[in-house]
């Protein structure tokens, strides 16, 4: 069955009426992950835009049709470790245990519990939708925010011009935990993303599976809502967000980007990069190139 037939056929688990912004990448990712995991799942969605938009059901205006918990910003993976263990002991290993968490809840505040759960091999699929900042509280920078991004805590002004540090490359760090499955994905490459969500769910039956998904945010990054998928596509094609997967210590490229576009082509139309000059764009290009070179060295094909 083609991935589009799969999407057509499976019922939605996330209800309509989500208050996520128009064109939100996070809503698309959350919907897709929930749909593929299905109702025989327990979800955890910590505070952030997706919880704020109501997927946890707290607002009584929307939610989902499966059991879901709003965890704390920093304990999603340890919370689900316990839930997972309980289901294992009850002989209910068939239940999908799934986290859908923002980059702040994953790479920053939640990193200790995430790293612990990964190292223990807790059986779950942990999905991070990476919109590169604390969007729900007003676009503060996070450790995954890319270099030069304008956020509310790294403004573009006379003292600094956007974020001064490089993004922490979390997916590679997660793969170094020797987990069952680790991959990056982007909604612009939906077939690949669907395949990776399915593989992640399978691998979560044996141990820890981690997916890091690029999540365009029109409101926080300042671009038109109808451009979300194009922004994600440009991120992949410029190597800002390379697509790869790692299973049992072996790395594979999912998209061999033979003719990358430049970082300049990626940033055009995205307001959060609007103030960057030559030198800053060159720095972003250099860090993008060096990360791509590292990924290519790691990958077998």
């Amino acid at each position: 069955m083609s991935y589009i037939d799969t999407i057509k056929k499976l019922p939605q688990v996330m209800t309509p009426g989500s208050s996520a912004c128009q064109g939100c990448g996070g809503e698309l990712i959350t919907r897709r992950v929930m749909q593929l995991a299905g109702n025989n799942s327990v979800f955890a969605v910590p505070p952030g835009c997706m919880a704020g938009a109501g997927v946890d059901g707290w607002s009584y205006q929307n939610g989902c049709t499966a059991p879901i918990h709003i965890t704390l910003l920093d304990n999603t993976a340890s919370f689900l470790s316990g839930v997972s263990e309980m289901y294992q002991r009850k002989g209910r290993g068939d239940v999908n245990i799934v986290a859908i968490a923002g980059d702040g809840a994953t790479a920053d505040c939640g990193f200790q519990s995430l790293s612990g759960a990964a190292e223990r091999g807790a059986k779950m699929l942990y999905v991070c939708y990476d919109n590169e900042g604390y969007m729900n509280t007003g676009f503060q920078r996070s450790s995954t925010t890319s270099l030069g991004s304008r956020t509310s805590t790294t403004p573009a002004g006379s003292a600094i011009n956007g974020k001064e540090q490089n993004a922490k490359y979390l997916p590679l760090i997660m793969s170094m935990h020797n987990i069952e499955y680790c991959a990056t994905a982007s909604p612009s490459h939906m077939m690949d993303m669907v395949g990776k969500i399915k593989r992640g769910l399978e691998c979560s039956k044996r141990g820890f599976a981690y997916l890091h998904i690029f999540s365009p945010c029109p409101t926080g990054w300042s671009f038109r809502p109808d451009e979300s998928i194009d922004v994600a596509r440009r991120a992949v094609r410029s190597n800002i967000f390379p697509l790869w997967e790692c299973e049992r210590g072996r790395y594979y490229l999912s998209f061999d980007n033979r003719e990358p576009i430049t970082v300049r082509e990626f940033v055009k139309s995205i307001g959060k990069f609007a103030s960057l000059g030559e030198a800053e764009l060159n720095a972003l290009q250099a860090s993008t190139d060096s990360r791509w070179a590292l990924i290519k060295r790691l990958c077998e094909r």
Partner: protein
Amino acid sequence: MRHVTPLGNQGMYILDTAAWRVVRPVMDKNRCVNCGICLSLCPVGSIYAEGKQILISYDYCKGCGLCAAECPKQAITMEAEVK
């Protein structure tokens, strides 16, 4: 009202995101080849299949325009919303 997910007739009150729309996607069925790409990319889950036909529901569509931007056949145009 066509719910993407049945919530039961006593179900929750649902936030009316259709009220956000200033433009609405209109599909030209003479151009559309029912490939389903728009369906796979709509963040709201507002595009559905009926048999082989791909159709747009206006119940919750937020009018973001993603479907129109991504349709390979340019079969969707965004038209001013008339209330």
